[in-house]
């Protein structure tokens, strides 16, 4: 009689439990895929930061007129800066920047023409 005072819970059937487990597994699989995707996006963020650094370096080069070729190494990437006269127009210089990852692969570039004097 004392047991009757507790609430009664209707148990799930075996099929219901199995379906629920399958759905849960699918949901988790899907979540893992998304997390993976987000991680890839995080690596895109690192690439974007490096690209923005390259543009920042271009702006600095123009501001201080440091028109010399150089290779600048950062923690996860390097920027190769090349300065040369524009073919057929000596009055112009081409500032060419190449962004390379840790493996040396080119992941971005930018060029800009400036007056030689």
């Amino acid at each position, binding site marked *: 009689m004392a047991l009757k005072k507790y*609430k*009664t*819970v*209707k*148990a*799930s059937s075996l099929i*219901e*439990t199995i*379906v*629920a487990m399958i*759905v*849960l597994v*699918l*949901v988790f699989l*899907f*979540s893992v895929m*998304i997390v993976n*995707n*987000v991680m890839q*996006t995080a690596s*895109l963020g690192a690439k*974007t930061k490096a*690209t923005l650094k390259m*543009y920042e370096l*271009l702006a600095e080069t123009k501001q201080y007129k440091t028109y010399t070729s150089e290779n600048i190494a950062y923690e996860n990437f390097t920027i190769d800066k090349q300065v040369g006269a524009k073919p057929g*127009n000596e*009055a*112009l210089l*081409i500032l060419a920047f190449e962004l390379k990852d840790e493996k040396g692969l080119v992941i971005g570039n*930018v*060029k*800009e*023409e*400036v*007056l030689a004097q």
Partner: protein
Amino acid sequence: MIRASALFIVLVVSFVVGAITSSIVFATFYYRLEVADLLIYKKLNTNLNSAVAELKVMSEESIVDSLVWDLYDEGQDSVSVKVSPWGIFEIAQVSAFSNNKKIQKSFLFGYTLAKESNAALHLGDSDRGLRVSGKTTVVGDCYLPQGVVKVANIDGSFYQGPSKLVDGLVIKSSKVPIKLNPTIVHYLDDLLAAKSENYSFTETDTSAFVHSFSKDTYFIEYSQAQLQSLTRMKGNIVLYSNKPISLTTTMRLEDVIVVAPSVIVPENYKAALQIICTDSIVVKENATLLYPSALVLVKNKSTMPLAYISLNKGSEVRGVICAYSKFVNEENVIVNIYKGATVHGQVFSNANVNCQGVIKGGIITNKLLLKTNVSINENCLLDAEVNVSKRSPHFIGSKLLPVSKQRGIVKWL
């Protein structure tokens, strides 16, 4: 009673997890899209800067009305330039584009001065050299008749200036007078006659408006009564009047061109504009015309009396003053720079300049004609200052006068 219903609970949890993850997916998608756009616009901006740099050193022959090219011949960096005259300067609209994305900038450009335009004084050849009197100062190279400069007593005033009469080289004037650029002269003639078929007048009685340089020019004809109600006008606008007009201090004009037979700039007025007239331009006391302003006087009728530009005491013009007669040996044109007036830039006249004020820049004229209360003296300066070193090193002139091949940006529009 609580139902165990595991499937139902799992579905609810899955829905919530699904909603969260799909919002993450969308956020990531738009983030990547925005980053891609940012990088494209950054690249377009560098291409735009490159196009501006190329335009600065491009040969005159290469510049046509509209030009499209690939910067590095890689098929990825397309830019275009559209050039059109704007008063004595020119306007360039430079665009960089990639697929459906495009950025554009407009600017007024001119040219750095050629050696002969960069002189303090450039007088026409005659038998009378330069004579200086009073507290006159001349700093900069000078092209003088006979290559001569000496002191003189004018109206009882002795020379009290620096021991060096000319602080710079003195070069003998050439017998060949300085020629104005025929393209700009032709454009100014067209503006004054308003005869080109391109000039269709816009009907408006608006008292204030701004018109972008990326659109076609507005040619507006205003009566003096309409002008009185005008409060603000900025941009790609040519303001016409076939009668003499007086500007008012309540009228804020910026970058516009004013074309009329005569224009009076009132006292204490401040603006940056170009005024093109046939009869006279008077800048009254304490008026300031900011860079890049231009006062252009074109005497195009030989029967007309004296045509003149006058700058009164306390007035200041930063830019170019140009007065010329279209008739050879015509001397009824004069630029009067009275005592207390200042010009920061360039003064040109193919006839006469009466200079008693301060020129932070140079004068190119056939003759200096000093008019005092008691006398008229040729090629004389009395209590004047002509100092080319006080002109800003960033000053950019018009190709109406001799200039170098190097272009420069006068103003971003």
